[in-house]
């Protein structure tokens, strides 16, 4: 069968016009998200068969006009203006919100005129009048036939939500489509008019066109409901109280509910690692697979439940229209710090995981505000820091009660989260003055009527986000995991062979103790405790001799002022992959036989004596220094990968890495010297 030509259909419309619902109805699960070439803007594509035609749909970012204001809106213009553009559509499907026809037709009329500006009518256009169900409910009537005649392009009434009029719309897309018979505002009408005047002129023309097409009766019902709901949700007291309650519930469920699937995923990988280590021939390849690729993969996969849950809640908040209200009530506060009302959700989501949080910053249209949000979000203490905090707090903070009821350990933990939050806000404030931008900060946004969430949209949004995370960030994470594995599993010369000889064990492939996640020791479980001890000691010796160990030694002079030795140095290097690797690395270094048991690591660390002082090495000063280092330092390649993906420039993850690293160094240095 010869390769048939696909009909490319571009979907365009105002924000909140129901474009994504229609897109999902038209394409179902056959969707893909990529980027428009050279832009950060997502390009959602989906395919369908209509009659005997292969049709490819793609989504242009929602916009109110073709006067490019934000990066998103620019894309639509770039594509529609350039006949030779790779994404130039065969048909443009315009989705109009029939319940707000005048404003919708503003953009539609610009598209009609754009095709004239190109010399001749060049963009075949089909207009879908969406939300006809709401129009009927409001007692409005639209004369579709008259509108079709006046605009000179096919206009089809649909309801994407109720799946009404979809077949007729599909037919229209593959039939020879109408070409606008005349421009709405001709070039002659435009001469000598300012942009402001032109906007008014255009609306006047639209009003003329709509004369007789629209019949109003009365408008009540859900407007009243929305208005009443808003009275509560934007109320001085209740507005914030309800928002905080919703946040609390979201984070509770992210921690509580996600913990179970995260455990299953971890167990699954442990099972695979154990099985592969036991059944595959011993050697480099197996070691790479088990300790490089599997541990890297599990590091990514384990975040999927949190990402999926977080986007589930965000999608509900967005789909119902509540998210717009959150931005509305928070804008005043966030603005002071160079952020936007829309920065609230990414910042707070950062407590779970910075990766989905940074991806959710896309709703911020102003580039500078979005960039600052992306740059400061990783300062919020994420869930990966929790195991590190827990270990260190248990190590240096006594479990005492203060004032009778406060547990000191709990208070320190909370303090670490607060330090993270305040440093994020303070950094944003500083960046506000450092990052130059000519783009004006607007907060002109539609507050859409409240609606019940469309579960299919939410499901598809989750699948889409998880896919992006797995495939885009995943590639980079695996690459770095393999590099770290290689560094930890190999040493210069034949140092490893010597060590194995010394411990009198047959050479095995288990050369990389560092990256092995806790519990990957199923094989060891069958051996005796003494064997474990030898295994542990050998692993520690190997680690010291490995390239990672050499790096640890190499950076020791730099971290000595912070109170860290080369052992911590190795952990700092390895936990660049992900913060929680710190615990596993310390376990290996202190040859703890049971890596899953943090108690034994803690005891061994507590027993370590500083040769210079004769006192325990992990003093309160060293403990706090390490904790603060983990609060501030950017030790998460998933985050760096996603920052690169979202900003499309290497510069920003690098700057972020340096500024967070500097903060970490200074904070650790200060606290170490103050407490020493």
């Amino acid at each position, binding site marked *: 069968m010869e390769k048939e030509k696909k009909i490319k259909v571009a979907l365009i419309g105002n924000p909140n016009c129901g474009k994504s619902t229609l897109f999902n109805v038209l394409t179902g699960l056959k969707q893909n998200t990529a980027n428009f070439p050279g832009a950060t803007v997502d390009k959602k594509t989906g395919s369908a068969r209509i009659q005997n035609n292969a049709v490819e749909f793609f989504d242009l970012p929602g916009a*109110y*006009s073709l*006067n490019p*204001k934000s990066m998103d809106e620019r894309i639509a213009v770039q594509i529609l203006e350039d006949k030779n553009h790779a994404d130039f559509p065969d048909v443009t499907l315009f989705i109009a919100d029939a*319940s*707000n026809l*005048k*404003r919708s037709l*503003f953009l539609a009329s610009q598209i009609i005129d754009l095709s004239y500006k190109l010399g001749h009518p060049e963009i075949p256009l089909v207009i879908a009048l969406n939300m006809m169900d709401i129009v009927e409910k409001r007692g409005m009537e639209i004369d579709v036939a008259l509108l079709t005649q006046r605009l000179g392009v096919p206009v089809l009434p649909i309801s994407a939500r109720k799946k009404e009029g979809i077949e007729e719309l599909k037919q229209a897309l593959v039939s020879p489509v109408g070409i606008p018979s005349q421009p709405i505002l001709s070039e002659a009408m435009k001469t000598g008019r*300012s*942009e*402001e005047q032109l*906007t*008014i002129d255009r*609306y006047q023309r639209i009003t003329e066109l709509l004369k007789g097409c629209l019949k109003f009766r009365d*408008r009540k019902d859900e407007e009243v409901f*929305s*208005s009443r709901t*808003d*009275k509560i949700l*934007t*109320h*001085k*007291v209740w*507005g*914030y109280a309800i928002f905080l309650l919703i946040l609390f519930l979201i984070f509770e469920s992210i921690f509580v509910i996600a913990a179970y699937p995260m455990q299953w995923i971890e167990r699954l990988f442990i099972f695979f690692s154990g099985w592969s280590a036991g059944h595959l021939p011993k050697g480099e390849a197996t070691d790479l697979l088990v300790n490089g690729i599997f541990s890297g993969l599990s590091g990514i996969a384990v975040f999927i439940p949190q990402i999926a849950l977080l986007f589930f809640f965000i999608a509900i908040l967005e789909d119902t229209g509540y998210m*717009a209200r959150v*931005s*509305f*009530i928070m*804008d*005043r*506060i966030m*603005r002071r710090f160079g952020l936007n*009302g829309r920065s609230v959700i990414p910042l707070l989501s950062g407590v779970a995981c910075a990766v989905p949080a940074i991806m959710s910053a896309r709703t911020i249209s102003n580039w500078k505000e979005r960039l600052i949000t992306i740059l400061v979000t990783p300062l919020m203490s994420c869930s990966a820091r929790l195991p590190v905090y827990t270990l260190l707090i248990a190590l240096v903070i006594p479990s005492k009660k203060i004032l009778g009821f406060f547990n000191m350990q709990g208070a320190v933990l909370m303090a670490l989260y607060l330090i993270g939050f305040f440093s994020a806000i303070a950094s944003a404030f500083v960046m506000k003055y450092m990052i130059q931008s000519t783009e*004006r900060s*607007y*907060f*002109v*946004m*539609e*507050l*859409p*009527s409240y609606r019940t969430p469309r579960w299919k949209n939410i499901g598809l949004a989750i699948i889409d986000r998880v896919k992006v995370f797995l495939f885009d960030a995943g590639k980079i994470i695996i690459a770095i995991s393999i590099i770290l594995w290689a560094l930890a599993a190999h040493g210069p010369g034949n140092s490893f062979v010597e060590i194995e000889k010394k411990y009198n064990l047959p050479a095995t492939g288990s050369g990389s103790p560092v990256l092995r996640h806790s519990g990957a020791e199923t094989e060891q479980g069958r051996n005796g405790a003494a064997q474990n001890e030898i295994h542990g000691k050998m692993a520690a010796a190997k680690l010291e001799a490995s390239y990672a160990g050499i790096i640890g030694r190499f950076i020791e002079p730099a971290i000595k002022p912070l109170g860290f030795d080369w052992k911590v140095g190795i952990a700092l290097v390895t936990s660049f992959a992900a913060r929680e690797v710190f615990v596993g690395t310390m376990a290996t270094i202190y040859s703890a036989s049971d890596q899953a048991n943090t108690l034994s690591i803690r005891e061994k660390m507590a027993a370590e004596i500083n040769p210079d002082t004769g006192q325990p090495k992990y003093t309160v000063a060293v403990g706090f220094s390490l904790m603060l280092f983990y609060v501030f330092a950017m030790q998460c390649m998933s985050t760096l990968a996603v920052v690169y993906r979202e900003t499309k420039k290497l510069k920003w993850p690098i700057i972020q890495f340096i500024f967070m690293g500097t903060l970490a160094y200074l904070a650790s240095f200060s606290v170490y010297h103050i407490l020493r």
Partner: protein
Amino acid sequence: MKKETGQPYTLADLKLGEKAVIDSFTDKELAVKLLEMGCLPGEIVELKHIAPLGDPIAVFISGYLLGLRKSEAASIIVREVKEVY
């Protein structure tokens, strides 16, 4: 909608629940954006909600609810509604 000074009334001067008619804009750049969003001269606006800290505000205009900052609202000159509803 009473104002003592000689300054023009703007959208930012409205009280909760008050209506006015859009007259003109003082900020050229912002004007285009607001016009595109349906804030046309002659349209009736109603101040529906004020965010807890007094800013931004939400107005009902040409069939939908629009949120905007007070500074942005101050660039929209309005006049009293003459007609009786």
